[in-house]
């Protein structure tokens, strides 16, 4: 049986350069938050560290979705992007709603 490479949007455009760039971006965005906590604790104000952690995490998630999962704004990805946006909405409502309820509950029980 003769097999051929199957052409799938996103996957077939994967390139060595993309994975290497994604790797470097991920390493940098992993080293920064670890260094912030290990060396910055006590030296920098906690709010700045929390902000830095959040920024680095969001940036790395976006970077990996782009470079590893090949998610972008091209037309063949519209469907996948819509699915992840809807998921983001559901997750946002659920996480923020739960934390809000539990925080208010906690403060009223004190």
């Amino acid at each position, binding site marked *: *049986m003769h097999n051929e490479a199957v052409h*799938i*949007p996103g996957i077939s455009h994967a390139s060595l350069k993309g994975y290497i760039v994604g790797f470097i971006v991920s390493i940098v965005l992993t080293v920064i*938050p670890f260094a912030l906590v290990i060396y910055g604790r006590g030296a920098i104000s906690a709010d700045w560290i929390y902000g830095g952690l*959040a920024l680095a*995490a969001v940036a790395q998630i976006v970077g*990996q979705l782009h470079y590893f999962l090949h998610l972008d704004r091209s037309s*063949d990805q519209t469907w996948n992007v819509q699915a*992840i946006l809807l998921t983001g909405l559901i997750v946002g409502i659920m996480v923020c709603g739960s934390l809000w309820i539990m925080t208010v509950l906690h403060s009223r029980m004190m």
Partner: protein
Amino acid sequence: MTTKTVADLSVAAGYSVKEHAAGHSASQEHEDHGHAAAISRTVDGFWLYIMTDCILFATVFTGFAVMSHRYAGGPTGKELFDLPYLFGETMFLLVSSVTYGFVVLAMNRMNKGGVVGWLMVTFLLGLGFISMEVNEFYHMVAAGNGPDRSGFLTGFFTLVGTHGAHVTLGLVWMATMIFMVMKKGLTPQNQSRLIRLSMFWHFLDVVWIGVFTIVYLRGVM
């Protein structure tokens, strides 16, 4: 045949099905369109599964966040977590995500040996990650800091354990793929499975970013 554009494919997805239904003779070209279209649909469906898994992880993350300060007199993250150790664990998973990318590149070139080789490398890196995690869990439980110690530790073991269970299942899937590719080669079905495993594996690395940031780094602050 191997250099079809994306636009070609998305048109072909609906098209070839219609042509088959209309009873046209199925040329080699139509069959290839059929494979690609079927795999494309399977991949879209698997993406939806990944989205539901996102929601699962979001609930466990929320549970952890609510419990994150309920120490019940037990140890805090500051006393439990070893950041340099965690950095090593993180590197195992991150590098394994990249080496799985090399599996996909080898697959696109129809390089069977490359696929099997990089799958093995990825498997070993994933095994390194999960071994470090099991070792961490073992020492915590042995010291009396198991999931029953406090609300914080219940949340911790639920969240990190759910992720670890996913990685373990991914490793089982990967070992299966190593054997299937060795035995049957890069058939369209095996390519489809390899693509779905790639999505699953990269997704687990994305979730891990949330775990090391929210659980560990925030935990030692």
